[in-house]
């Protein structure tokens, strides 16, 4: 019995190791944290940001396991929603950049100065797609 428990605990720890390091590797490839530090000029705070990611991951894990009810007023969801959106948006932007979409597109079509308008299309498309999903697609 004890052996079984120890083995399961070890298995859980190992899975956690794998998922956690994978998550960090993914964040590192996308380079969101360096980008935020570059924008805000807070390179020295890198350790604090690392801890923010670690604590956030742990909080998310505990939340999904324990299902707590914090009973906070609903308006608190507005800033949380915005923050989640910004994070996912940065991830989406980082992915398109990793895939080199825009440089190739502008070269092919031969528009250099209008790239901002094309990027606006991308951003508005993301917003419109997301709103469409929550307001119509899911309720239908």
């Amino acid at each position, binding site marked *: 019995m004890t052996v079984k428990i120890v083995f399961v605990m070890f298995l859980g720890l190992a899975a956690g190791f794998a998922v956690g390091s994978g998550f960090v590797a993914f964040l590192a490839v996308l380079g969101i944290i360096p980008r935020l530090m570059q924008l805000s000029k807070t390179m020295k705070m890198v350790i604090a940001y690392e801890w923010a990611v670690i604590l956030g991951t742990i909080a998310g894990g505990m939340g999904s396991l324990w299902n707590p009810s914090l009973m*906070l007023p609903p308006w608190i969801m*507005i800033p949380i929603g915005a*923050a989640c959106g910004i994070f996912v948006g940065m991830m989406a932007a*980082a992915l398109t950049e990793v895939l*080199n979409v825009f440089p190739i597109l502008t070269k092919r079509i031969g528009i250099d100065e209008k790239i901002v308008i094309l990027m606006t299309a991308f951003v508005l498309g993301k917003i419109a797609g997301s*709103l469409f999903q*929550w307001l119509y697609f899911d309720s239908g």
Partner: protein
Amino acid sequence: MHPDAIQLLDNMKKTRESILFIKDEEIHVREVNNLENTVYLRMYHKIQVYPHETVYVKDLAQVIADEKYCHKILNLPVYKISEKDRNFVVIDVMKVINKISRTVNGAEVQAIGPVQSIVEVIYKKKRVSVGFFILIWMLLFLGAALTIIYFHEDVSMGAAQQRIYKMITGKDDKHPLLFQIPYSIGLGAGMILFFNHFFRKRINEEPSPMEVEMFNYQQDLDQYVIMNEKDEGAKKNS
């Protein structure tokens, strides 16, 4: 020591001194020559020309040379663009040095910087038609909208958001719009933040990842052109 031997040694010493002296003189003369005939040449990385233009040294490189040749060197024709060159010609520094040393006798050309120039031939300015542009815009817009829906479905974003809503407010809501609408707007804000390139207003001076990416891409293209475009007098077999 035998007096003859002393005499001999003395003679040898004198001869050596005179040889050294002559050598000194020669070196000195050569150096003066060098200074007058040295031409410093720095090729531009990339230049743009129109079809049927002749490319002169002054188009291809920065030149520092003695005043009496400088003008002559700058206006040396190096290459005439013809139909068969199409978009790119690569001109090697050797070709320019060759031209210069044929014109200025005994010129010592010192090449600094890039060893070749990419000459891009610009045919009439490409203008993108408005219809085509709108088409691409719509393609990107709809594509972006569809991919974010795919992504949300793939990771069961709706269900996750309902759980988060329940967790924080303690209420069940099938459509937690209070969370979802700010989330959607934040999505766009996050992308803008990442690219830092919007509407000409920058958040700070540093180049955005997109600009760096474009630069790298251009660099790779240039490297490819240098390696692959046959230039005049290049070794054809590889």
